[in-house]
């Protein structure tokens, strides 16, 4: 839409509002990084200044080389990548079934998946703990992958379904006429076309798994297998005065999410809309 008559006061107001949103969104992250690069001796004198008089990378060095954070980072990476990969494969199958078939019980399955998105997942934290404990799987990263995969499948399925819906059915029908089985048609014709969708789903699930705290806190107590959120929280409650190091660790936790976010950013509107409309 082109607005023909532009009011200068309105235009100014618009740019002020844009700037306000930008500051509100970025200021907390700026502060996180700012404290992380402030030298320890200046924290109490210049902690609330907008920029410290000198900066240092010492906090990052300490966190990376002298604490367990790199191990936590590795654990989280393993869990998040594992969850993202398994979820995306299973959700692609389920989303394909929803997109291409009509079958008895479809409505019930969709309804059940929607309901799992609504009820408090914390409800099952006690039973999950007891089941995992009785299997001897406490402190195992695999158990986290299995649990996170189940939590993320419904949303990922609806997301994948919307990507499959956008691809004409004629394509695989033509391939099947040429003698492909349906699975071959899916693998050779349809999946290559849904690569962006697969990428977006991977990104969403990775971000969700990377952020998860409460179930990880319940199921993991061993220092060796802590994920990043659990490790950071334990660190904060133990060394609550070491501001610079905590924020350096926090800044590091931002990196993978931001990378994935840049990658999935252009699918956000599409992805969340399909999730929200159907969810």
């Amino acid at each position, binding site marked *: 839409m082109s607005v023909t008559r532009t009011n200068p006061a309105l235009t100014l107001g618009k740019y002020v*509002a844009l700037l306000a949103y930008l500051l509100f969104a970025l200021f907390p992250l700026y502060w996180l990084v700012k404290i992380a690069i402030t030298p320890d001796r200046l924290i109490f004198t210049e902690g609330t200044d907008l920029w410290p008089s000198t900066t240092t990378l010492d906090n990052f060095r300490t966190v990376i080389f002298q604490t367990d954070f790199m191990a936590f980072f590795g654990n989280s990476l393993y869990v998040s990548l594992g969850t993202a990969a398994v979820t995306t494969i299973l959700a692609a199958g389920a989303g394909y079934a929803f997109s291409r078939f009509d079958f008895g019980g479809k409505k019930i399955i969709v309804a059940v998946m929607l309901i799992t998105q609504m009820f408090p997942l914390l409800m099952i934290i006690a039973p999950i703990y007891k089941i995992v404990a009785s299997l001897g799987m406490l402190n195992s990263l695999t158990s986290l992958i299995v649990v996170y995969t189940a939590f993320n499948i419904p949303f990922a399925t609806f997301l994948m379904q919307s990507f499959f819906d956008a691809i004409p059915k004629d394509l695989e029908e033509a391939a099947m006429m040429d003698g492909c089985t349906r699975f071959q048609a899916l693998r050779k014709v349809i999946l290559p076309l849904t690569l962006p969708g697969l990428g977006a789903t991977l990104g969403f699930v990775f*971000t969700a798994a990377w952020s998860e705290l409460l179930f990880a806190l319940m199921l993991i107590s061993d220092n060796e297998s802590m994920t990043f959120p659990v490790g950071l929280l334990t660190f904060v409650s133990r060394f609550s005065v070491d501001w610079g190091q905590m924020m350096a660790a926090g800044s590091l*936790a931002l990196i993978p*999410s*931001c990378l994935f976010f840049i990658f999935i950013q252009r699918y956000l509107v*599409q992805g969340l809309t399909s999730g929200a409309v159907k969810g």
Partner: protein
Amino acid sequence: MVEPFLYLSPAIVLIGTIILIPLIIGISYSFQSIEILNPFATGWVGFENYVDLWSDRRFWIALENTFWWTFWSVSFQFLLGLGLALLLNTQFFGKKLFQALVFLPWAVPTFLSALTWAWLFNPTIGPLPHWMAALGILDEPYNIMGDPDLALWGPIVANIWFGVPFFAITLLAALQSIPGELYEAAEIDGASPWQTFTKITLPFLAPMIAITVMLRTIWIANFADLIFVMTGGGPANSTQILSTYIFTTAFRRLDFGFASTIAVALLIILLVYAIFVLWLRKKLVKV
């Protein structure tokens, strides 16, 4: 037809075993005494947990806090998200970069959002108490999360920061689906921008607003991470909401029976809310 189930079955099996079966077990826990720290007290107790819950002062405090937490979070997220969506629906220089940057909070892991905001509210290293004191909101720069009257606002502000992009994204998608001819017709008819907004934009957005607000309300009422990290429910339970109460009861006291009872209560409240909203929608659509 067997074929669709070949593609579906792994997902169904996983959801069944990891979510649905534990859900049933969880409901059964609410009728048992299961304290990991007190294994001799295990057994079926009927409605005893529910009787305890009814007379538990902390439950009622948490219920009230859940209401205010959800109400203020959703209201501000919605209003700011709508504003952002309207801005993003216009043309301006550097829009792509702007959009990527304002949506960034949504990608920040929740535990990190919580820690970052907790630090911003800390007078030693954070600027917010000093700003609020300078503006006269506080008498002196202190940490509002130590003040039972104000503590809940700490997590609420963090939640608004984290949730505005979600509302903006969904509303922006809805805005983009409004046919442009409507605006052209309105302009020809000489409608003011305010008239265009209330007569075209809002009615078109209404269904999306209704469903997004309902889903977000349920989601935020369940959302425990921010409060758990920022205040742990304190001081003096002033920030305890039902979902953090479930988690602390299970995690710190290892009292699984009572934790499940609170969870069932929360589930029932949310169900009643959802049914009420759907009933309201049906009624409004008829008129």
